[in-house]
């Protein structure tokens, strides 16, 4: 090597060398990218909501997202945290999920209340993302449900449901007596409809196995109705309508490996088995499992709420236990409880159990034996 070439060779000066622990490379997946993928998975459900409920739904989504983001920023300002925390996308996910958990015609102030409950009470008082033991959206939903039961069960029909009193829609409407309305001078400003679950709730239960019992739920649990439930043509919360859209989103989540597959599989499975058993024993008490799977917030919960990473168990076995517990609680509340829908309650309750489940479902290390072999050599 001649003098000339040596002089041209540049060696690191070492001034910019970073000292850090191994590993020195990263797969570039960040909290932000995960959250954005979750948002992507929610898009089908959001699209379905807007398709079925129109601008009302869009408005609710916009309100919820805006309030959640604003409240998060506000809290961070107050608490002296960097406002850049907002970039992690968790408030966006909370906002969207909250919107999917509200009825289509929800006034802005309920969205604001929900966002406060979710972002502040559900998340930030515990120290922000990753620290909250309870699912923020479930906290918001349950809080609103207890405080404002009327507003939270104000269901409007989807765009494709018309009160023509024929066929499928027939079941869900009690069409107002227009003649009487005009006489009393009341102003007619909107249609409400029932949800399949609320009809199930109000249907008197028959505790024997007569033919009457078998037909107890025929009006809401028949193949045509199932198809409508599946596509999303029914009343309910924004995200509760279209099972199809949510399953699409679920597939996206599973493809990106963002959720533990045990949660939706065991949750839906437990609900199916549990309601199946009850239905077989007393057909007059509850409709067939398919009804339960397709209606209410079960699908949304199974794929988007119960799978929330922060508030579900961290090991696969724990996730399975968690999901089975969720399934049983949901069914018990749906069939015998005082509320038509039990998913949010059951999520909160199982959230409380997560630390215990985590303790129970601790992983055994590779090569684990009860009595570790003493070190040789």
């Amino acid at each position, binding site marked *: 090597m001649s003098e000339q070439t040596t002089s041209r060779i540049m060696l690191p000066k*070492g001034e*910019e*060398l*970073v*000292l*850090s*622990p191994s590993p020195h490379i990263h797969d570039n997946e960040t909290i932000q990218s995960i959250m954005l993928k979750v948002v992507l998975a929610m898009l089908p459900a959001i699209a379905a909501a807007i398709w079925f409920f129109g601008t009302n739904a869009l408005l609710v989504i916009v309100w919820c997202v805006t309030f959640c983001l604003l409240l998060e920023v506000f809290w961070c300002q107050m608490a002296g945290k960097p406002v850049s925390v907002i970039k992690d996308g968790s408030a966006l996910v909370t906002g969207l999920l909250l919107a999917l958990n509200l009825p289509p015609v929800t006034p802005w102030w309920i969205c604001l209340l929900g966002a406060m409950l979710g972002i502040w009470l559900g998340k930030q008082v515990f120290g922000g993302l990753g620290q909250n033991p309870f699912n923020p959206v479930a906290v918001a939903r349950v809080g609103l449900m207890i405080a404002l039961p009327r507003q939270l069960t104000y269901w409007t029909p989807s765009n494709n449901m018309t009160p023509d009193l024929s066929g499928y829609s027939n079941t869900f409407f009690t069409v107002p007596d227009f003649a009487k309305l005009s006489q009393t001078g009341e102003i007619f400003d909107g249609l409400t409809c029932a949800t399949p679950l609320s009809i199930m709730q109000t249907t008197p239960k028959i505790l024997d196995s007569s033919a009457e019992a078998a037909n107890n739920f025929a009006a809401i649990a028949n193949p045509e109705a199932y198809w409508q439930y599946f596509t999303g043509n029914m009343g309910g919360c924004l995200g509760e309508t279209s099972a199809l859209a949510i399953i699409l989103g679920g597939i996206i989540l599973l493809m990106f490996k963002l959720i533990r597959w045990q949660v939706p599989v065991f949750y839906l499975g437990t609900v199916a088995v549990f309601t199946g058993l009850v239905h077989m024993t007393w057909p007059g008490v509850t409709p067939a499992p398919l009804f339960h799977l397709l209606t209410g917030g079960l699908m949304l919960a199974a794929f988007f709420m119960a799978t929330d990473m922060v508030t579900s168990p961290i090991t696969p076995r724990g996730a399975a236990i968690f999901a089975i517990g969720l399934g049983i609680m949901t069914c018990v509340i749906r069939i015998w409880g005082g509320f038509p829908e039990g998913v949010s309650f059951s999520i909160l309750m199982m959230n409380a159990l997560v630390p215990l489940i985590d303790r129970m479902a601790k992983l055994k290390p590779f090569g684990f034996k009860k009595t570790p072999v003493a070190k040789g050599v």
Partner: protein
Amino acid sequence: MLLTIILSILALSGLGIILGLAIGFVSKFFGVATDPKVDLVLELLPGVNCGGCSRPGCADFARALVAGEASPEQCPVSSQEAVTQIAQLLGMTVGDLEKKVAVVLCGGDIHQTKVKTLYNGVNDCISAMQIAGGPKSCAYGCLGMSSCARACPFGAIEMINGLAVVHNELCVGCGVCVDTCPRDLIKLVPAEAKVHIYCSSPEKAAVKMKVCNVPCIACRKCVKSGEEGQFEIKGFRVEVNYDNFPGEDIVEKSGCPKNCLLTTAQHLEIERNADKEENAV
């Protein structure tokens, strides 16, 4: 009415007598005696569970004291008074105690000692030590990641300019920080010793001067100006002999060229001012 009152009184006193007798009977025949001394001793102990006595907590220490497995002066935190009281309670005698405080023997704050490399990792001295010995260019200086300050149960260590400084008035000399420091910079010294040489690097003066503005270069000015035996020369550095420590006037007399022989107060003052200067900028 009267009958009701009388009956109530009768019923309640009857119940009282029956229950009283029952409790008395049970305690008489099944009672187990416990030593009330443990609680008394526990009340006299500081109750901060610092572990300075090498036992998991004050309650355990109290039990050991009563059982005669420990002696009261093993608690480094208790005042002389409290120790005497405990000893009296247990019928022991104790010798005189010398109060000790911790001192961080390093003066290399971020202004004086270069931080050579960028560091990206856990903010903890012991963890940083595991990665190429940490970012500071002096391999023996304070890493400044406040492991000792977090460990101190009394909040006596403050981090100023990336340097741990002990506040003597808060320090009780429990020694928790001494075990925490991965660079063994912290020493327990007699509280009366106010002068220290704030450098622990065993390296040659030339090496030290390259990385730090305030190293002990073993020029021995202090040794010469002090009395015999007040300082010890340890390789390429000098250390105060804490069995025979010099008075505060030694700082003036010796005129340490590198400003690393300082009194505790001076040291604190320097760091405080450096901090202020930085804030002003």
